[in-house]
């Protein structure tokens, strides 16, 4: 019964989205506020209907209702509750439902919170958001319905891939989808700007918070995915340039470029066309990702089950949506104002340079991902494009971008003096040089890449701090004034500094880990030991363990630090999930400062004396923690920046009308 309510609510949501699009579009044509209110109400109702639908799916997973095809294929009654709930979005159908939930959710937010937008702009945006919803809801209802029943339900389900039964991977899709789909609002706003023929500073101020929210969520989602790969796949890799990783990385790159170009449009009214182009591009790449992951055109570790029909449908949605969007762009954008002038050396130019490099990076990732398909289609030859390609192309582009980064925020708008900006960065340059020399002198084996990378990280972190130091006149003004200025810094500045410094921290971790990672693998009998990077790991015991839905062998390892003291006791496992017959390894990570001693229990063998021996691998991953802390700090910067706008605008209102009563709510009201 509850499952049928879910299916009904899903269809209701589709109908409400049609109403949302129709009413809002008509509201724009007739300039009728009542119709606009109907459209906004429908947007909010569509979200609530879909929330009911999603709750019904989770319910079906929690009670293990195997008469529902999706539950039977992706769940198992012995799975722990958390993974049964997470299973609701672990499958293709469930994840599409989550995509729709995010789409309608953002539609409801746009309808409820978009009160400052001009009526025409808002009506078009709500109508566009509704039509994006129609496309994916119709797809979900007709081609990928998670509520389809089985006439002959099985007694037991087929379970979720055990690799995916992990807390980080339960949280990874929601964040990723909020990020992907958050860009749909930006897409809708871009369409509205094109229809209205206006992309001014006020419009750009509307684009920024949505982009920031989507960008922060994407950052968290991608980092969770990388972290999961790091500790779950069992050999310490965290980024593989896999097509599916690239599919999530391209929207992130575009959103990053958009965040920066929207600043130019907001502050200086310049580059409106380019900002709209990026706003259209963000969601286009999100949809491209959805297509690549689900169509099976690319082989990938993460791909969902291959289904060509669904692939064609998703490609159609992608083609039609992006095609219409960019056609409208080609038609309307040339007529739009070009905006303010700026000199070659100026904040604007720096941000444009940022955008050129990010666009080139995105193009590189896109081409690297699709090139095997293109060559296969044209010449019928199969080739592979793997990590070595991206290391040779993407990495240099990023190196240039990050090298220029600290100078950007120090340049003035319109016309700046590069010499002055560079002078201010002398401390950062000095410390970066010291870092490079120290690395070359101390770190073994000697690595030029490692030294340059560490110098870059230091340059970024100190360079970001320099901007704050400049603004508060550190060491130049009396202490009272410095503190006053420090308190008065807008949160947007803190957000930017955090994000840039976080990037520097990530660079430090990524470079150090990649360059000086150590690995030792030995076949050990009980009581034997191996050595990795000065640490001694002794195998004390191996015992069988019974988990809720798996059987495992668990090793007890005693790890000694280079000075001979006990570093930690580690218990890596090798698990066998009987439901699907897969083996996974549960690594043990011992955190030493910023670094990880990472231990993996391998297969059991028969030793020379006939007794059991185990393949044990120890990795020393220096500064690995920074790889995940850095992006965490970047996402935090995004959130801090978001909080700034609300505070500033609210404060502005308080100052402007100290005793004014609350404005009457808009007809549509806000979502609860």
């Amino acid at each position, binding site marked *: 019964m509850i499952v049928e309510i879910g299916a009904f609510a899903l269809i209701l949501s589709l109908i409400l989205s049609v109403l949302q699009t129709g009413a809002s579009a008509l509201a724009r044509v007739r300039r009728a506020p009542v119709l606009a209110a109907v459209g906004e109400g429908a947007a909010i109702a569509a979200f609530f209907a879909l929330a009911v639908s999603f709750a019904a799916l989770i319910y079906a997973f929690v009670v293990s209702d195997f008469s529902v095809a999706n539950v039977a294929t992706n769940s198992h009654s012995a799975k722990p509750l958390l993974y049964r709930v997470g299973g609701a979005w672990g499958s293709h159908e469930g994840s599409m439902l989550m995509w729709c939930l995010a789409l309608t959710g953002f539609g409801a937010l746009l309808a409820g919170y978009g009160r400052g937008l001009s009526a025409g702009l808002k009506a078009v945006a709500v109508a566009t958001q509704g039509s994006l919803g129609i496309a994916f809801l119709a797809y979900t209802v007709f081609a990928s319905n998670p509520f389809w029943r089985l006439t002959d339900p099985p007694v037991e389900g087929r379970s979720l891939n055990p690799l995916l039964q992990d807390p980080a991977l339960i949280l990874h899709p929601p964040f990723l989808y909020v990020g992907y789909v958050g860009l749909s609002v930006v897409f809708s706003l871009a369409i509205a700007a094109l229809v209205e023929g206006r992309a001014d500073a006020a419009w750009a101020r509307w684009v920024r918070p949505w982009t920031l929210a989507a960008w922060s969520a994407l950052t968290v989602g991608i980092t969770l995915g990388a972290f999961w790969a790091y500790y779950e796949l069992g050999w310490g890799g965290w980024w*593989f340039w896999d097509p599916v990783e690239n599919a999530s990385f391209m929207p992130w790159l575009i959103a990053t470029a958009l965040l920066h170009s929207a600043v130019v449009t907001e502050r200086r009214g310049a580059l409106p066309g380019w900002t709209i182009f990026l706003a259209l591009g963000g969601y286009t790449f999100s949809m491209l990702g959805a297509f690549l992951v689900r169509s099976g055109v690319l082989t990938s570790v993460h791909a969902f089950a291959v289904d060509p029909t669904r692939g064609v449908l998703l490609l159609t949605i992608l083609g039609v949506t992006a095609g219409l969007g960019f056609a409208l762009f080609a038609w309307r954008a040339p007529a739009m104002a070009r905006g303010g002038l700026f000199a070659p050396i100026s904040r604007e130019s720096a941000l444009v340079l940022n955008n050129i490099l990010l666009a080139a990076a995105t193009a590189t990732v896109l081409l690297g991902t699709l090139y095997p398909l293109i060559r296969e289609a044209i010449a019928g030859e199969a080739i592979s494009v793997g990590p070595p390609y991206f290391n040779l192309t993407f990495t240099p582009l990023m190196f240039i971008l990050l090298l220029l980064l600290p100078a950007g925020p120090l340049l003035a708008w319109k016309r700046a003096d590069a010499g002055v900006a560079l002078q201010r960065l002398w401390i950062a340059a000095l410390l970066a040089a010291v870092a490079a020399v120290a690395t070359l002198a101390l770190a073994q084996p000697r690595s030029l890449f490692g030294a340059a990378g560490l110098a870059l990280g230091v340059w970024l972190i100190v360079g970001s701090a320099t901007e704050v130091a400049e603004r508060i006149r550190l060491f130049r003004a009396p202490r009272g004034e410095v503190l006053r200025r420090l308190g008065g810094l807008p949160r947007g500045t803190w957000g930017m500094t955090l994000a840039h410094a976080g990037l520097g921290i990530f660079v430090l971790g990524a470079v150090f880990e990649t360059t000086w990672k150590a690995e030792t693998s030995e076949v050990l009998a009980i009581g034997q030991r191996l050595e990795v990077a000065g640490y001694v790991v002794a195998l004390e015991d191996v015992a069988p363990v019974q988990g809720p839905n798996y059987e495992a062998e668990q090793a007890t390892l005693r790890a000694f630090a280079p000075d001979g003291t006990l570093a930690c006791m580690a218990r890596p496992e090798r698990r066998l999930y009987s439901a699907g017959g897969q083996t996974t390894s549960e690594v043990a990570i011992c955190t030493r400062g910023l670094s990880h001693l990472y231990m993996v229990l391998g297969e059991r063998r028969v030793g020379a004396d006939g007794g059991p021996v185990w393949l044990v691998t120890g990795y020393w991953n220096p500064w690995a923690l920074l790889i995940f802390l850095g992006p965490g700090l970047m996402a935090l910067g995004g959130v801090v920046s978001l909080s700034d706008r609300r505070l500033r605008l609210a404060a502005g209102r308080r100052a402007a009308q100290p005793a004014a009563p609350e404005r009457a709510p808009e007809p549509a009201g806000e979502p609860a």
Partner: protein
Amino acid sequence: MNGLGRWLVVACAVLCLGAASDPSERLADPAQEARARALFKEVRCLVCQNESIDASNAELAQDLRAIVRQEVAQGRSDVEVRRFLTDRYGEYVLLKPRFSWANAALWLAPLLVVLAGAGLLISRLRTPPAEAELTQAEISALSRLADDRPEDRGSAS
């Protein structure tokens, strides 16, 4: 050994073969072993889903590692090893595409995008905008916008 343990041994024999660092696969000469490991990262495990033979535990990856190690041990250069692999398995086996005419678009695209962007920026900086001055309508629109700034408070920021 208990029943569960025995069962795991059997399951492992089927499902989990050795990793790249497995001591039983290793070459005696550390320099040759390091070269082989570097080559592994460039070679695709053909039956896996986008993994190098350095990362994969699949049987085929193990075979390919044995081939590469054998070639390295016989003193072949990196180029010779790569040619040996592509002669047998085609270009698909290389994770790093060759620098060839067929791949020119792939390797040159990043540079071309940067150059195109730089060209656009330079032309933008050189040509003065046609509408440098604001029209009366735009000035009034601007002041109107400036006035309703506080109303933006409900933004989804």
